[in-house]
């Protein structure tokens, strides 16, 4: 076995153990120190974990429910071959057991799936009902789609939802203290601590406090509207269609600034990059700028500030300071 193969085998063992829910802090420490030992280790692990994560997309192939699964067995019966009949029964029994075991463990819901993205990353996810999600940078969410309903918990960050229409199963997004209910539409939800923002590209969504006992009437947000809520306060803004497109341009990995202050633009960039932009001066922070940039292209952005606005850019390795 070559050196590279040995390393790959160890990386695969770590990855497989980490894929098990029994992963402990000691396991993590062992992995961390192994990764730090050599670039060869880190690369082997990165390569495998990337592929394993790509495999999450296979969840789109999940069958809708036990009824559909049992049909596989039933449809095979008309072929009068003993082997086929036997195979059909085995399939039905095995799948049946799987599903019941599952229901027994989790009540009436299938297990929820967890998705997350690192800073600067973007990921498209297909749910079992045909809905599509795009996760923006540094985002964590959990999705449970089953017969009883369609639910997504946005734990952190921002996601765009393209919801498949199904009036019998409302699609509900829980974000902070808000509950966003839709039947079929396109919209994004961003969570920033307690603040929840909803931007609707098409259709209508209903935004309500998550706690059922509150008597507040839900707010209905329609096309080209944006809602910002924090605590008990709710603000609805009607925006020009072009601006909505700009706000959702992160789906193409772009940031579009239109007369935005430099402080706001820097805050946007900082969501996507580990090395943060710091605006040292309040007059500079209030400057208004426009333009379109790739989310990861901080260098291009700062170059422009240097050349176009004669600002001083100081990159000390940990952060990038911008001043007069």
């Amino acid at each position, binding site marked *: 076995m*070559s*050196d*590279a*193969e040995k*390393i*790959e*085998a160890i990386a*695969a*063992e770590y*990855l*497989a*153990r980490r*894929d*098990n*829910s*029994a992963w402990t802090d000691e396991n993590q420490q062992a*992995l*961390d120190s192994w*990764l730090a030992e050599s*670039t*060869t280790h*880190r*690369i*082997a*692990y*990165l*390569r*495998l*974990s*990337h*592929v*394993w994560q*790509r*495999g*999450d*997309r*296979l*969840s*789109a*192939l*999940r069958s809708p429910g036990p009824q559909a699964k049992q049909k596989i067995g039933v449809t095979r019966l008309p072929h009068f071959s003993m082997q086929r009949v036997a195979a059909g029964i085995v399939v039905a029994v095995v799948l049946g*057991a*799987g599903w019941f*075991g*599952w229901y027994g*463990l989790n009540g009436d819901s*299938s*297990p929820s*799936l967890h998705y997350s993205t*690192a*800073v*600067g*990353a973007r990921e*498209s996810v*297909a749910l079992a009902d045909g809905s599509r999600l795009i996760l923006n940078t540094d985002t964590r969410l959990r999705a449970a789609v089953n017969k009883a309903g369609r639910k997504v918990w946005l734990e952190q960050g921002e996601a765009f939802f393209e919801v498949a229409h199904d009036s019998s199963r409302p699609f509900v997004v829980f974000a902070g203290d808000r509950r966003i209910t839709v039947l079929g539409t396109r919209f994004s939800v961003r969570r920033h601590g307690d603040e929840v923002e909803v931007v609707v590209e098409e259709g209508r969504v209903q935004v309500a406090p998550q706690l059922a006992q509150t008597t507040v009437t839900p707010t209905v947000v329609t096309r080209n509207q944006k809602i910002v809520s924090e605590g008990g306060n709710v603000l609805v803004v009607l925006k020009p269609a072009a601006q909505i497109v700009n706000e959702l341009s992160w789906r193409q990995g772009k940031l579009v600034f239109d007369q935005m202050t430099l402080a706001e633009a820097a805050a946007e960039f900082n969501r996507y*990059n*580990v*090395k943060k932009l710091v605006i040292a001066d309040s007059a500079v922070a209030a400057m208004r700028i426009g333009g379109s940039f790739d989310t*990861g292209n901080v260098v291009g952005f700062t170059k422009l500030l240097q050349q176009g606005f004669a600002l001083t850019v100081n990159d000390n390795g940990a952060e990038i300071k911008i001043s007069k």
Partner: protein
Amino acid sequence: MLLSELDIWFVSEVLPLELSLMRFLRRNWREESDMLDLRQEIYVRIYESAARAIPDQVKPFVFTTARNLLIDRARRAQIVSIETVADLDSLELGVNELTPERHAAGRAELRMLQIALEALPPRCRRVVELRKIEGLSQRDVATQLGITEDTVERQVANGVRALADALLSKGVQLKTKAFGGVLAKKRLLS
């Protein structure tokens, strides 16, 4: 593991080139048994050099690194003839090596994953299916298949290596028309 900016760059910009890189290595280096070590060394050079400064143009950078490594190796190995070294020196990067490449998107990606999954040995495949399609935990997979958790873990380890080979190094051939057809053709050419 927390991914650094460099890790993300490596995964999203360098790994998609693995298929072309392996073709390039096979075309220019005769020892099949050296391939994985060569790839590892090239990746290390790329990663460590990018840690200092991430290159603007990924593809030329990857293939230049590969070429330089082959030249180094050929010079160090006494048995390699002068001609080989001269050949490598004049090695030019073809047009195929310079066109951008990305991971397939959406449906094509799903098809590629499916084909790679179907190529796994039956038990390994079943484990990966339950884990990834049905979303069962390793423990639940073990219960359902009546095997130990250790076995599940071993199958996951085997499975991920086989999937990486299929998806990154060897390339999956899509037979469908439309997007998939174009992609498969592109892969054949590169």
